[in-house]
């Protein structure tokens, strides 16, 4: 991968860490609206990854299409920007052929759960050692604010002008039910916690999903009268409860609440390892 000598220099200050991993000049400036939460997720992800200390050449970042899926393009790793909804099959292809690589998928709620819904549940089921960060802004940002599978019932979008008649997915419940072994939810208003959740997801062996609650004030906020970026973050903060606290709450009390923390964590055999065992067993014969 082409990286200049300047980029490779170790960051001097803590604040330089993020810049150290970006692709200066070539792909920046980014496409995100000012105040968009996706940039917060990118910075947080980079700090988490930097703490683990993985070599950049060992990391492959894969994404589909959407505002959130633009993220890998801006970072200096092995980046694959693929088809809408199908980042996980691409990532599976990489990981299965190169189990030594750290494969990370960045996806949006539409990308992962609508057009990519089938791929999403199967990646979970296989428990392949991939980390997926699902940036959930409850809407299709890139194409102009259409409803997504996480647009809540009755909410407005450009394709639900009378309020949404459909029900929404809870990505964390879906992932846990489908077989993912690390499932967590963070939010762009709670950055230190988000960093911990992403770091643990990256280190977990098996399929990890980190859902990040994010503001799209440009479409979701505007169409649902939730104001600008700051008021949306404030709203997230006011509506959030920890996993521990949520355990003592009734379903009615939990309605409209955002539960933050590790939702589900179990140990199960990992797909690439299991396959390797088959190969090894045949070698011995």
């Amino acid at each position, binding site marked *: 991968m082409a990286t200049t000598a300047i980029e490779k220099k170790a960051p001097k200050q803590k604040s330089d860490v993020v810049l150290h991993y970006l692709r200066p000049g070539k792909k920046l400036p980014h496409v995100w609206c000012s105040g968009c939460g996706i940039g917060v997720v990118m910075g947080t992800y980079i700090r988490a990854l930097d703490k683990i200390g993985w070599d950049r050449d060992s990391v492959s970042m894969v994404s589909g299409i959407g505002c959130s899926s633009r993220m890998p393009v801006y970072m200096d790793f092995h980046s694959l920007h693929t088809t809408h909804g199908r980042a996980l099959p691409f990532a599976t292809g990489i990981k299965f052929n190169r189990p030594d690589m750290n494969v990370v998928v960045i996806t949006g709620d539409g990308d992962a759960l609508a057009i990519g819904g089938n791929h999403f549940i199967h990646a979970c089921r296989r428990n392949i050692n991939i980390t997926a960060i699902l940036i959930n802004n409850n809407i*299709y940002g890139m194409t102009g604010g259409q409803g997504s599978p996480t647009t809540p019932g009755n909410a407005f979008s450009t394709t639900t002008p009378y309020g949404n008649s459909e029900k929404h997915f809870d990505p964390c419940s879906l992932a846990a039910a489908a077989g993912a072994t690390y499932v967590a939810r963070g939010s762009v208003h709670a950055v230190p916690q988000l960093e911990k959740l992403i770091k643990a997801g990256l280190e977990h062996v098996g399929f990890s999903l980190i859902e990040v609650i994010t503001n799209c004030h440009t479409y979701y906020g505007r169409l649902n009268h939730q104001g600008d970026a700051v008021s949306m973050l404030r709203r997230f903060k006011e509506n959030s409860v920890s996993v521990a606290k949520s355990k003592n709450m009734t379903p009615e009390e939990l309605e409209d609440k955002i539960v933050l923390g590790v939702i589900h964590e179990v140990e199960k055999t990992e797909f690439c390892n299991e396959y390797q065992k088959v190969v090894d067993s045949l070698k011995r014969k």
Partner: protein
Amino acid sequence: MARILMKGNEAIAEAAIRAGAEGYFCYPITPQSEVAEYLAKRMPEVGGVFLQGESEVAVGNMLFGAASTGKRVFTTSSSPGISLMQEAISYIAGAHLPVVFVNIMRAGPGLGGILPAQSDYFQSVKGGGHGDYRLLVLAPSTVQEAVDLMMLAFDLADKYLNPVMVIGDGLIGQMMEAVEFPDSDPKQNRVNLEERKWAATGAKGRDPVIIKSLFLDPLELEENSLLMDKKYEQMKKEEVRYELYKVSAKNELLVVSYGTVARICQTVIDELESEGVSVGLFRPITLFPFPEKEIYREAKKKNIKTVLTVEMSTGQMVEDVERAIIGAKPVKFFGRTGGIVPNPEEIQGKVLELIGSMKKRSTSSRKRK
């Protein structure tokens, strides 16, 4: 009805409503998402159904189901989305169902870009899915024509019980032009389900129908394919549509182009005319059936030395033009792609270059004599 200023995508949506469409299934994609946004509001107003599917694969199959009920149904998408519908299109054709597809083309391949292109000609005309089927393909060059062809598309889909594809380059969807709609009540154009014996409308007083494209017996499958072929032959006889612009015996060169590119070519032809160069335009409106005989008729006129095909692609329709002309005249090509709309100057340059080299050739051949 009065003329109103409307964006192409919204005009297409309203035209479908006026044509009596009762079902619209979609998945957002630039540059045609305005159709969905318009119909999200409009469909429930007229009591029809609007559904944003989970993907274009879902949409294609929802249409298969919806068309089976006998109602007029359609979708709009853009190139990558239309690619995902190809499986359903093949099944819908095999099952003899009327569905209208609209492709507001953007530049490919792959994700490509979001700017206008005509690079899905092959996919639309030659069959993007598997099997022996054809789509009836209509290509508007103005927003008004998009409205008119949308209305026609539903009629043709019903007439042939075959999917119809309307292809417009991204410009058709995005530009605003004055349009006029027929004064019809949307409900008046709705189909009478009683008359649709092939539809899944219950089996009271008749044998049940099975809507399928599966025929395990090869003789039965061949019979189905031959039945389809008969429809395509009938289309070739009855549905060829095209427009001529400044076509005359004086033309030295014939331009063939479709969609909005044809309008740019008109500008070029006007400009050349004022400089004393006579060029005619042949604009196919149906891309399948392709106006083969008609292009041949125009191209073989005595004065015409060369035929120039202009497209927003690296050359797709040009193959059909070559096929139509069967060597009677040289066929040349000019195209821009990647989302670049050719400007009149570059097309004019190409025309003059061809006419210039034709002149050179004829003088040098005279010298040799």
